[in-house]
């Protein structure tokens, strides 16, 4: 492929006012969840469109549809006015859609040049890869992008994330991709690297590429985007030119919603402090985190993805180490060295990734529930199955678990019911403090209500709950107090009285009121 030609003589493009890519009426549902409903999006050549929305608004699903990974249930995709279908990732790639993710999907053990030309490497007369031409072309592409500092022969593994992004973009350039999707590309970059990325985006704009830029950070959006599209709960709620819209206006579009979910009323008596954490620090992930959790309280932790909330919780629950700080549980200082110790002390952590960190698929329900409580259900070293069963039965019944038998493999349950098994498993350890990390992420409305109802019941019984959540309605509907974290620090602590969503989003994103 001759990469230089396309830059010296740009191909004829439709006028800038016509969108290059149009999605219209796109809907997509998964069992129990409606991810996208009748959404539209247009990307214009030479312009950056920012896609804005809370977690779970449907941004990732849309990206997967645009890159051929998911098929929409309804709606059309057209490029330059022509309807197309993207039955596979390969088809999307061939038609000129390239996505650059947070963790860019490239091949760590191949060279930069190989990554750029994988799948369309120049061939020699004998059909073998023409390495010399490939390296030369790779260097040319990188030079055009002002990324000549990247060695085309370097292993990708040895490059930083910013440079990996550059390689991904170089790959897009090498196939003359007209549509570039950047899904939170700055999440793992330093300030300097972000500046370099912005220069690159400017360059892509000059090249007439249509760019979709997904970010949670408003300063970045206002810095680089020309247009915006706002998603909320799987629907498109607004779009326009970024210069015509104020930040508050966009925040309102993101969070303004009809109340379609009633949160349980609860009358938990908030008592004395149970857990107090002070000066908790980690070398790279969080610093000087301190808070108090009271008996019967639900303490919400809000923040953007990557603000360090889960990392703090993993440290408190003994899964990772801290560099400084104290954790006092009911007047006793604890220095957890393992998860088993904190479970013993009375703190349990219900992790975010249900499949990976929560249920043990392949074991039956009752064995999943009893797994952290095996010490209590065994005598003289032997497990007592009857006791395991009754333990499992009492907690799964309270959570209204739908299963034909407790001997059933958890893998056969729906997501919502699996989550109930995970919660039952932790409750069975009789904890004092229960930390729920995104307890309702990706589960259906009915199961959400059951989990919320159960949280209310827990605090009514005198337990204390820490709830890490990125869902604003959940944070506002369930928490007694809300701690907002930003970039590994506690940004603010709010009493949940008359607290509004906009304040939380502003604090989390660092926008001045």
């Amino acid at each position, binding site marked *: 492929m001759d990469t230089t030609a396309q830059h010296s003589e740009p191909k004829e493009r439709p006028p800038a006012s016509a969108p290059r890519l149009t999605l219209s009426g796109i809907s997509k549902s998964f069992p129990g969840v409606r991810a996208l409903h009748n959404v539209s999006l247009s990307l214009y050549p030479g312009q950056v469109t920012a896609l804005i929305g809370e977690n779970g608004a449907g941004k990732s699903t849309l990206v997967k549809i645009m890159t051929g990974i998911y098929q929409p249930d309804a709606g059309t995709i057209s490029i330059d006015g022509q309807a197309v279908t993207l039955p596979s990732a390969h088809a999307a790639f061939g038609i000129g859609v390239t996505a650059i993710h947070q963790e860019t999907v490239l091949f760590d053990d191949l060279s930069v040049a190989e990554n750029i030309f994988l799948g369309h490497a120049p061939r020699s007369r004998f059909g073998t890869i023409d390495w010399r031409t490939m390296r030369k072309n790779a260097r040319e592409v990188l030079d055009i992008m002002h990324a000549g500092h990247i060695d085309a022969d370097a292993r990708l593994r040895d490059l930083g994330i910013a440079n990996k992004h550059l390689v991904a973009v170089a790959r897009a350039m090498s196939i003359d991709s007209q549509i570039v999707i950047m899904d939170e590309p700055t999440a793992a970059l330093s300030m300097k690297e972000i500046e370099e990325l912005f220069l690159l985006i400017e360059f892509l704009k000059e090249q007439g590429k249509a760019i979709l830029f997904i970010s949670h950070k408003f300063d970045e959006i206002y810095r680089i985007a020309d247009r915006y599209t706002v998603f909320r709960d799987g629907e498109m709620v607004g779009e326009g030119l970024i210069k015509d819209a104020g930040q508050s206006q966009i925040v309102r579009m993101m969070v303004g919603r009809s109340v379609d979910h009633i949160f349980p009323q609860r009358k938990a008596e908030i008592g004395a402090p149970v857990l107090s954490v002070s000066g908790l620090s980690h070398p790279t992930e969080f610093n000087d985190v301190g808070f108090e959790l009271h008996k019967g309280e639900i303490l919400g932790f809000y923040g953007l993805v990557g603000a360090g909330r889960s990392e703090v919780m993993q440290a408190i629950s003994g899964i990772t180490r801290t560099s400084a700080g104290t954790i006092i549980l009911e007047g006793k200082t604890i220095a957890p060295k393992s998860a088993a110790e904190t479970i013993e002390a009375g703190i349990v952590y219900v992790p975010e990734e249900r499949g990976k960190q*929560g249920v043990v698929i392949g074991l039956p329900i009752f064995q999943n529930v009893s797994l952290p409580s095996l010490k209590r259900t065994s005598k003289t070293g032997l497990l007592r199955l009857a006791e395991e069963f009754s333990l499992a039965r009492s907690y799964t019944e309270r959570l209204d678990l739908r299963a034909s038998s407790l001997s059933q*493999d958890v893998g056969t349950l729906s997501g919502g019911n699996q989550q109930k098994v995970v919660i039952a498993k932790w409750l069975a350890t009789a904890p004092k403090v229960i930390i729920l990390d995104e307890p309702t992420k990706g589960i259906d409305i009915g199961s959400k209500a059951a989990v919320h109802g159960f949280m209310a019941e827990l605090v009514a019984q005198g337990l204390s709950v820490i709830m890490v959540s990125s869902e604003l309605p959940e944070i506002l509907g369930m928490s007694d107090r809300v701690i907002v974290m930003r970039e590994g620090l506690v940004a603010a602590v709010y009493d949940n009285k008359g607290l509004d969503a906009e304040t939380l989003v502003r604090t989390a994103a660092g926008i001045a009121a």
Partner: protein
Amino acid sequence: MTALLKYREIWLLAAIVLLIGLISTRFPAFADPGNLRQVFNDTSILMILALGQMVVVLTRSIDLSMASNLCFTGMVVAMLNAAHPAIPIPLLIVIALVVGLVLGAINGLLVWRLNIPSIVVTLGTLTIYRGATFVISGGAWVNADKMSPDFIGFQRAAFLGIPVLSWIAILVIALFFLLMTRTALGRSIYAIGVNPTASVYTGIDVGRTKFVVFCISGMIGGLSGYLWISRYVIASVEVANGYELNIIAACVIGGISIAGGIGSVGGAVLGALFLGIISNALPVINISPFWQMAISGSAIILAVMLNARGERQQGRIILRKAEAV
């Protein structure tokens, strides 16, 4: 899951019955209870070894050094017996268990503390332990005439009409059954194999549990060392050379997933029996050893195919139920 596993074991049991039936058409005496008892006795050591390997494989690891451990420990007890015939056999068995345990603990520590993949660690100790056998023996053999009558006779003594070797196998099977179904350790072994990350969050020490399973497989290797040497009455550097593959084959035929987390005591025992019957019966009905190898090999591939199919079916069940809920 349990139902599915039972299903697999019944399949294997049916295959074994069919095999015995087929053989008895050519050689009717094969299906005699007396002969079947003999086949069980002949397969005892493989069954014991397969169970030791099973707990390791369930945690997504592998112990390639078991046969070398057997060889080394066998040499140690044979030399001890030759030098001090007065040492009673039960004490010698305890010594074999301890020596095996030490070798297993070395594997386990390397896997646990240094985080080296078990296949690499035990590939190394496979040669080291066999080399160590050469070092302690100077390459010499210990022959039957140097072993005490008790040393050779212990496992052959009959108790209720069944040799002690078979009783030892039955005892080991029972202990493993108890371990895997009724103890916290057994439960942790399954949990680690299925989902190591969730196990960490649940408070299971994954590294330490792996250490423990290598200790178990080491002890089994050591025990089998005494049993093997006293059965074949010769200790040399060549003892059980390459036998680690038979052990793993028995596990695989028994439906123990090399990916960890799936498998049962019954499966491992039946897998070993299947191989035992093939190697016992085929020479009797005049089938060449090369055919034996081909049949064993086909059985391995067939077993893996059936297991893979079983797992796929499980996937379909998930979808149907998910839709129904």
